């Protein structure tokens, strides 16, 4: 899928019982193929913003993914072009073995099951974890789980990638492998992190969006 634009206009969110908006009113945009780091202190609403973009939460302001708002009417179309990598890969891995889990998205997109397994194997290969294909998820390390989860997200070829602290639980080697994999992807990306230095020193250019507390 071709890269999608992301537009955020006056988006803010107040959780039930809270006295502050997290995130406070925020506007920015990322052109197709662009990359941005989303920075801010703990609890300022970075993950909430990702959930708003994915249509998991509703609130004030306007979100547009490839020109479409993730409203009830467009939700399926928006989510088809969107990949979400959760901070904790244990939440995102749904099936008992790596290959089946990566093939889950393509199969549900209507791909022939045999072809879906081939696509899954290709993505595991591209991320350098083809050796994990038949391994039970429970036997994988956190870094391996995150790479398998990323393969599952990328196997649907999303136009916009939302990444919630993808390297938070990874060691240097696993972080590097994940970042190298992302370097090869042409999708638009919005990445939440507390380690801006790691991403800003990479070859690919990352813009910065800061959420003020």
């Amino acid at each position: 899928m071709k890269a999608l634009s992301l537009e955020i206009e006056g988006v803010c969110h107040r959780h039930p019982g809270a006295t502050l908006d997290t995130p406070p009113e925020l506007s920015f945009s990322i052109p197709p193929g662009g990359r941005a780091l989303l920075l801010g202190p703990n609890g300022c609403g970075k993950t909430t913003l990702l959930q708003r973009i994915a249509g998991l939460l509703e609130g004030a302001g306007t979100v547009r993914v490839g020109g479409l708002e993730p409203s009830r009417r467009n939700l399926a179309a928006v989510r088809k072009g969107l990949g979400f990598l959760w901070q904790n890969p244990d939440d995102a891995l749904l099936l008992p073995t790596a290959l089946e889990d990566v093939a889950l998205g393509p199969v549900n997109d209507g791909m022939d099951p045999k072809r879906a397994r081939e696509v899954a194997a290709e993505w595991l290969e591209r991320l350098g974890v083809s050796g994990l294909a038949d391994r039970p998820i429970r036997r994988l390390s956190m870094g391996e789980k995150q790479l398998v989860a990323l393969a599952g997200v990328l196997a649907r070829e999303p136009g916009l990638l939302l990444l919630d602290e993808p390297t938070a639980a990874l060691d240097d080697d696993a972080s590097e492998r994940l970042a190298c994999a992302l370097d090869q992807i042409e999708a638009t990306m919005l990445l939440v992190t507390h380690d801006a230095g790691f991403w800003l020193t990479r070859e690919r250019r990352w813009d910065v969006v800061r959420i003020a507390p």
Partner: protein
Amino acid sequence: MSFAAAGAAAGMAGAGSALLGLVALFLWSLWLRLSVRGLFWRLGVLVSGSGLWLLAAPFAPAQALGLALRGFTVSAVVVTAGMAVSWTAPLALLQVLRAPPSLVAFLAILARHAVAVRDEAQRVWQVLLLRGAFDRRANLPAALRILLAALVSSAFRRGERVADVLALRGFEGRVPALPPWRWNVADLPAYLLTALALSATALEAIG
């Protein structure tokens, strides 16, 4: 192994030899190098069901005690066999038997998350242990309440998260085929024992 199988079968055939069957099963699990700790945990869950009968042994009629023992032996055979077979085999077998895809999908996702819940329980248990929750016997009920509450609350959280993940990953009820089921000689005794145990139970119920 044949000794173990024969012992277990004998255990199922009569209440008097049920204990012998259990010993045989234990030897079989050692031969298979199953995790003894894992086996005891699983059998512990079974004992909690039939344990009331076993606790009441001195007062229970011999027939009831025999039935409890035989029931426990049959359950133990199924549990041990379940641990012995390669863990995706039952799901793959269901696919071969053309079980409804929704059932296979449900069991596959359940299998994955049962492990995650177990890991979560272990984590909470270790946190309680390290924070001294089990240091005094009087604290035990409170510690167990915290463990239960933490598990229930994390189960709700996990349920919501899994629903979000399913939506974002475009899940529409289809699950990729699991690796094709193949005969594995090492799994054969486990299948035979399970079939034997279930047949014995069915015959007992009919007879």
